[in-house]
């Protein structure tokens, strides 16, 4: 008799996990507002065990929310940093809307990051900082570092799964072609819906994203090994897609994918050339072996372009996000980053 009800119960449980995903708690580590401008917020995580004098600023992409740094209790990079004694700040881009259509890359790099660094130093009372950038956030961080003078407060850069040389990539084959009219999209949407960008990301691996994810969930329910909290926290984060301000979207697609300006040294922000050779800080570049959004070969040319004497490259298993938020990240990625940072944060 129990066999008769087993399958409907498993289906109902799978559906329940999917339908209640919105209730999952993510980004729960306590933090305080340090500074705000428009939708941008600088947060500081509470800690009573700060040991390293050099504070850490986390910067994520313009698509998806930065909660991925602090996904869930027990699986949070922020928690790990705090446990290791770092003073941790987060630059949150917020959720842009139509009124932020004028926010271009220069606003983010030359204004928001620079102002957030000023407020971070003021709040922490320190003279130097480390920035950890991820995905587009890493590219924006690299642009910021390239534009800063040599006596800037930037001491260390940690760049995770960063697209730099987009000459050959799946994204480029989609949006880099002449027939993709980025101006039409940017003119139609003052804030390009995050859902559109999300669908494009998922289309890169359609079966894995639209079928396998749910099949594996059902399999785990059948086997009695489903981890509801882990699934829901990641699924909630994946589904939270803030809009992309149209100016930034237009510039990102045109400059990075259609013209590949950054690695060619042709990118200018506010009339200043973004020259990666100006980067002299200690740099840790982390790539993911199975990254299909920013594949390793789109990051590697960065290592030859910069002038830093202290450069480390870490290649880890995993995908674009799994690298830092997957179940193995705690053992395979985070300790390497904090070890590297600890030696350079005295």
């Amino acid at each position, binding site marked *: 008799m129990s066999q008769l009800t087993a399958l409907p119960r498993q289906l109902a449980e799978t559906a329940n996990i999917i339908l209640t995903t919105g209730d999952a708690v993510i980004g729960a580590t306590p933090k305080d507002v340090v500074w705000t*401008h*428009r939708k941008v917020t600088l947060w500081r995580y509470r800690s009573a065990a700060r040991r390293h004098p050099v504070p850490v600023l986390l910067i994520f992409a313009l698509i998806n929310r930065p909660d991925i740094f602090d996904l869930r209790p027990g699986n949070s990079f922020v928690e790990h940093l705090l446990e290791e004694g770092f003073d941790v700040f987060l630059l949150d881009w917020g959720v842009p*809307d*139509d*009124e*932020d259509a004028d926010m271009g890359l220069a606003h983010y790099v030359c204004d928001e990051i620079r*102002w957030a660094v*000023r407020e971070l130093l*003021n709040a922490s009372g320190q003279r130097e900082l480390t920035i950890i950038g991820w995905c587009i956030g890493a590219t924006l961080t690299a642009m910021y570092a390239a534009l800063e003078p040599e006596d800037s407060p930037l001491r260390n850069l940690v760049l995770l799964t960063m697209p730099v040389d987009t000459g050959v990539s*799946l994204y480029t*084959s*989609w949006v880099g*072609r002449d*027939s*993709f*009219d980025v101006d*039409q*999209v940017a003119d*139609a*949407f*003052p804030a390009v819906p995050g859902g559109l960008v999300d669908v494009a990301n998922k*289309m*890169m*691996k*359609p*079966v*894995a994203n639209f*079928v*396998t994810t749910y*099949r594996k969930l059902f399999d785990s329910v059948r086997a009695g090994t489903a981890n509801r909290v882990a699934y829901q926290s990641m699924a909630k984060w994946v589904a939270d897609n803030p809009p992309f301000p149209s100016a930034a979207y237009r510039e990102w697609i045109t400059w990075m994918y259609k013209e590949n300006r950054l690695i060619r040294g042709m990118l200018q922000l506010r009339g200043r050339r973004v020259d990666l050779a100006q980067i002299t800080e200690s740099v840790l570049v982390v790539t993911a072996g199975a990254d299909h959004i920013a594949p390793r070969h789109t990051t590697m040319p960065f290592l030859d372009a910069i002038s830093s004497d202290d450069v480390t490259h870490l290649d880890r298993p995993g995908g674009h996000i799994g690298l830092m938020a997957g179940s193995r990240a705690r053992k395979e990625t985070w300790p390497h980053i904090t070890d590297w940072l600890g030696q350079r944060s005295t």
Partner: protein
Amino acid sequence: MVAQPPSEPTGQSTARAGTPAEQIQRLYEDAESRAGEAMEGLVASNGFGELLSLLTSNAVAMIKVGGDAADTVIRTLRLAGRSDVARLSRQLARTEDKLELVLQELRYLQDREPPASPPRRPMPKPKS
């Protein structure tokens, strides 16, 4: 004669092991994996890129037409629409920009000023 290492089990030979349900499961996973690889090859093709560009253009055009029509209806009914809310929000954003400029001035002055010394006590008036 040189002994050959055992070959990797194929999908079919693997599927023969286990219960019928397990065999079906393996066959399905194998099919899903092959479909995944085929789809990844498809989306990476030039033809798919062209198709995606055209579909995006059509979808954006349709959304724009629909949005413009909805705006016209809302304006005709004299209701506040999305563009009105955006205009108000832009004014708020400009105010925030000005506040940020004030904060920059404040930080600049803080950096320039030496630490404040305690206020001087007023001298007691001499008794006449």
